[in-house]
């Protein structure tokens, strides 16, 4: 009989500090956001992006920031390998990305394949001036494609079979980063 072991590696308090630091980093580099869009990678980049937006608002740097969400499902290279048919999630980019800076946002970067698919999905909407990648957790030494975040929260070293899960109070009822192992 197999079980799951869940180990808390970043508690809610520290998570909020990291989110705040990333939000302020984004404000420092891109405020007042006129030529900039935040694009959350579905599905788990969305709560992270919502937190960033809320933090920017609280800190007074929100300005005219526009943000949207992007689903990379239809661009994945492993769509038939998941054991069930995945329902594509909503893509909604409220303004043109042409000639603007896009900040892609996701909670965890692992092999980098999801971001690669998201980049393909993004290019469908035009040619951005540049693309930045903001992630909360960087699983180091795990890339299968040459993609690195340009803004990052914390680094975690995890083995192949382990999962790194970010949980948010409003969705999961708890907040923090967990390392999950099947034993």
């Amino acid at each position, binding site marked *: 009989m197999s079980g799951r072991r869940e180990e808390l590696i970043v508690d809610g308090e520290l998570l909020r500090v990291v989110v705040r630091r990333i939000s302020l980093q984004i404000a420092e580099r891109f405020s007042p956001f006129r030529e900039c869009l935040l694009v959350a990678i579905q599905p788990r980049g969305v709560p992270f992006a919502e937190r960033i937006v809320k933090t920017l608002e609280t800190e007074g740097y929100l300005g005219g920031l526009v943000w949207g969400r992007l689903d990379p499902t*239809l661009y994945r290279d492993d769509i*038939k390998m998941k*054991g069930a*048919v995945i329902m*594509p999630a*909503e893509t909604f980019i409220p303004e043109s990305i042409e000639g603007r800076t896009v900040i892609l946002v996701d909670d965890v970067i692992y092999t980098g394949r999801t971001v690669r698919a998201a980049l393909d999905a993004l290019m*469908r909407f035009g040619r951005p001036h540049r693309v930045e990648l903001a992630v909360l957790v960087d699983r180091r030494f795990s890339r299968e494609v040459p993609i690195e975040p340009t803004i990052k929260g914390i680094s975690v070293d995890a083995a192949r079979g382990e999962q790194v899960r970010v949980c948010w109070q409003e969705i999961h009822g708890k907040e923090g980063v967990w390392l999950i192992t099947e034993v």
Partner: protein
Amino acid sequence: MLARNSRERRRMADNRSVTDWRHRHLLGIKELTREDIETVFGVADRFMEVLRSPVRYVPALRDFTVATLFFEPSTRTRMSFELAAKRLSAEVISFSPGTSSLQKGETILDTVANVLAMGVDLMVVRHASSGTPHLIAECFPQVAVVNGGDGTHEHPTQALLDTYTLRREYGTLKGLRVAIVGDILHSRVARSNILCLKKLGAEVMVCAPPALLPHTIEKWQVAYTTQINIALRWCDVVYVLRIQKERQQSAYISSMDEYSHFYAITMERLLSAGKPFKVMHPGPMNRGIEIDSRVADAPHSLILQQVEHGVAVRMAVLYLIATARGHVKG
């Protein structure tokens, strides 16, 4: 690790939304649950987003080959399927009987076997004989089959795009009153739509001249009438079927003029029903026979939306069947 036994879409361990889609083929509405139909609608919503964005295709089926085998003539359904497959980046090949080996006496199954030997993953099949796609699916388990219309039996993608159009228009089909008018007896479109509408909670009435109502109509569990005004006064949406000229020749109706006189959907008839209405038609239309030009072109008409939604719905069907292929056994 397969998601199993859930009635709603739920989150797998990695938080992605999965469907319960387990069909290797789409042979009819009969085999679909209400949940399956809602899954098709959900995926079609995403493809509508794709179709309305600057680059209208995605690479999801780039390693797939789709063949359309239309043993019966069709332009719009075939084009719609071809576009759907191309917008998923699949390779598409088309087979039409006029220029083919069928005229040299080859059987359907031999034709299919030959096409398959060339490496095809999915076939869209239309044939004048009911049950042909089912036969192909049974004889060739390695290929996925989508029914593009078989005889007088079913035309599942038409019903899916029609009900999807109604869902987008009304939000829900529960309690919606739909009257289907025309040659019910010979219509696979009517059969599939009746099944689909009922599964989604709509109320259905059919209206036809007595010779074009099946004599088993009581068993269909729908209301029926031979009086067009009764149908129009009752319904929220009128679905107009094409009347084929061949029916005139084989004495089902005495003349097209007589059919028009009693059953044509005219603006006068619709307005005198005294309530808001929408009009649908699967195409191609015989303007002036079963439907007036004024009606077809009026703001009440959902006909062009049906066509637009047809590509998105067919993309959804191809996506679901292609991605299910790996893990659903025949």
